[in-house]
């Protein structure tokens, strides 16, 4: 085995020239009038390596400029060099809190191109796991938004109650996060014995947890004082920026891709309510996610009642070659609208994949949203938008 690198192929640029870029600074003008504050990239409130260059006049924000890319892994370039099963391993890590939900649109797009349809049982299990990921993400949000606003206790309750769902996901897929469970044509394994009853019990705990959060956090006067009328997103502006998911529904826009988009998974067979709130402030976003958590738990119970028996994998060739074509699948992920535009040229891997991630658009509204607010409100707004760095930076 040779330990020396093979000679570089003929390219115009010498890739070794880029090693110094790790030290590159983002150019920021120094202003002597207002104070420039760097929130991040290491900061407890920014959910990861997001940097907000904020220009302050006393305690008021004059302008805010998010600097992203500290976690840019180059997914769209990486997937051009990988086969479809390899890509499924990667895309788990885009939105790492609800990792199963990231696999679903991509696998769906590949299945469209191949003309394969997964069997009904597999679709049900996929939907249940997606909704469980949604519950896991939202329960954590309900807790840690309290933490960002100052209450220490709800964060622990959030983590504790999320454990129930993570245990279920671990029992079904083998890992708590990044399950890599979805396959083109179905899913990897069937559910273990007793999982359905465990899930029913866990959903009851989720309902109880939501009640606790409603009392402890949403019902707290100080929390309301900190979140009402803070960070109002007007619905038209939100849509123009591409804000999606619970953020847009909290501004009163009645749009949910599970109900209104192209039918995917088993959502057409389910009976669920889409929650909206007219205010559009941070409290509204909290409230909408609280209600959606309960709704997801109801949906899971429905699906457990309706789950059909049958195979979990359709007939799929051993080496997956996806025929030529383009496909776009968008889904209602916990963070918002996620979509994959897959362009295939008949090889074992895609030619181009455009990954539309929700948090990228949600965060793009920050320069507009943060003008004129106080510094503590910046934290509240960041917490209420609920982005994940992997989703922004891909």
């Amino acid at each position, binding site marked *: 085995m040779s330990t020396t690198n093979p000679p570089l192929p003929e390219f115009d640029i010498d890739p070794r020239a880029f090693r110094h870029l790790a030290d590159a600074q983002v150019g920021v003008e120094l202003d002597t009038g207002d104070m420039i504050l760097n929130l991040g990239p290491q900061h407890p409130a920014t959910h990861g390596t997001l940097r907000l260059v904020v220009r302050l006049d006393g305690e008021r924000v004059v302008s805010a400029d998010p600097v992203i890319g500290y976690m840019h892994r180059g997914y769209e370039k990486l997937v051009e060099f990988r086969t479809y099963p390899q890509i499924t391993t990667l895309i788990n890590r885009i939105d790492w809190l609800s990792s199963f939900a990231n696999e679903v649109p991509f696998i769906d797009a590949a299945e469209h191109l191949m003309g394969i349809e997964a069997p009904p049982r597999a679709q049900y299990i996929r939907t249940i796991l997606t909704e469980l990921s949604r519950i896991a993400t939202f329960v954590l949000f309900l807790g840690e938004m309290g933490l960002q606003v*100052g*209450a*220490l*206790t709800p964060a622990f*309750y959030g983590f*504790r109650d999320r454990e129930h769902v993570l245990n279920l996901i671990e029992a079904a897929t083998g890992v708590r996060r990044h399950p890599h469970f979805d396959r083109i044509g179905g899913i990897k394994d069937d559910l273990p014995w007793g999982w359905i009853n465990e899930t029913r019990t866990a959903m009851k705990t989720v309902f109880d947890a939501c009640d606790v959060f409603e009392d402890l956090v949403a019902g707290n006067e*100080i929390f309301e004082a900190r979140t009402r009328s803070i960070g109002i997103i007007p619905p038209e502006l939100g849509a123009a920026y591409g804000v999606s998911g619970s953020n847009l529904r909290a501004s009163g826009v009645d749009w949910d891709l599970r109900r209104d988009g192209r039918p995917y998974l088993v959502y057409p067979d389910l009976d669920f309510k889409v929650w909206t709130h007219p205010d559009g402030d941070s409290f509204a976003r909290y409230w909408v996610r609280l209600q959606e958590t309960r709704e997801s738990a109801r949906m899971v119970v429905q699906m457990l009642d309706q789950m059909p028996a049958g195979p979990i994998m359709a007939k799929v060739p051993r080496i997956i070659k996806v025929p030529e074509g383009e496909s776009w699948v968008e889904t209602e992920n916990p963070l918002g609208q996620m979509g994959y535009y897959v362009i295939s040229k008949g090889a074992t891997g895609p030619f181009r994949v455009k990954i539309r991630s929700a948090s990228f658009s949600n965060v793009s509204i920050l320069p507009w949203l943060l003008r004129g607010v*106080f*510094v503590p409100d910046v934290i509240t707004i960041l917490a209420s938008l609920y982005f994940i760095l992997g989703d922004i930076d891909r």
Partner: protein
Amino acid sequence: MISLGSVHGLLALDIGWGTTLAIKTVIILAIVPLTALVLGYVFLLKMMSHMQSRLGPMDPGGFHGWFQLVGDGIKFIQKEDITPAQADKRVFALAPAVVVISTFLVFLVIPAGPDIIVKDLNVGVFYALAVSSLSVIGVLMAGWASANKFSLLGALRAAAQLIAYELPLLLAVVGVVIQAGTMSLQGIVAFQSTGSIFGWNGIGFPLILTQFIGFALFLVASQAELTQTPFDMPVAESELVAGYMVEYTGFRFLFFFIGEFGTAFAFSAIAATIYLGGWALPASWGIPLGVMRFLGPFVLFAKVMGVAFLMFWVRFTYPRLREDQLQALAWKFLIPIGLLNILLTGVFKVAI
């Protein structure tokens, strides 16, 4: 004013004021960190953990991790002393000292028994509040000298908040002083212990019964004075990451920590003393003074734990207020209530 003994009576020895002073100094220097430690362990580590459905430290020391804070103290002491390069070195070094000194000074007037007090000033409660506000200077020094924008933000917020909440604190105490007729803490304790409610002296006359508004006011204001949630804007952990203390490490940070929890104990002790009767049990129970000299500190400790429980319980439950909301609460809500309290107290004192 009723006197309850003298220091010479305590020791029955003729030891001179210098030695007395030395003994008292040593005791105070030992007690303040100890109280900080006890309070920190019981409430910050154990009570908070149990409220958050977790256990807290369990290993250090064997029994429910009682050694944790002592171990933390040892860890802090042996840490490297880092001063930021652009910091103003002398001010940076002095700031924690100022904060801790103000804590020590408050302990001078807290009575723990009939004679167990460093000096029973006859402006006791006034002195205690005045001296506790010295910590504002320390906070400002810390924030400015750290050469860090986050620290500066925290220090400025702290200064505004601490000054604003001095007033409700004082107004609450004025109600007590009007009723008790004295500012000396021993006098207030004596008043409550030997007092009677409409002729019945079964439990003495704890001032909380008539000064409940003042008690609530005092608790809220002392929560703000200690920069504890819901008033912890200066040390907003998820925003400023320890605010004005962020550049302090090791021993200096330990000073701030002792200052914070020592002051918590001090304020709880003052609240217990002026509202709940302090170290004294009702005089009608007939417990002789000699026994009280032994029992007093324990009684005070129990009452302090009760008050501190309330303070820390609120700390771990509520989110934090924004500074403008905080200021509005102080100036527009608490101060008018304090003034109303004084008015009512005065009226009832004269009328009844």
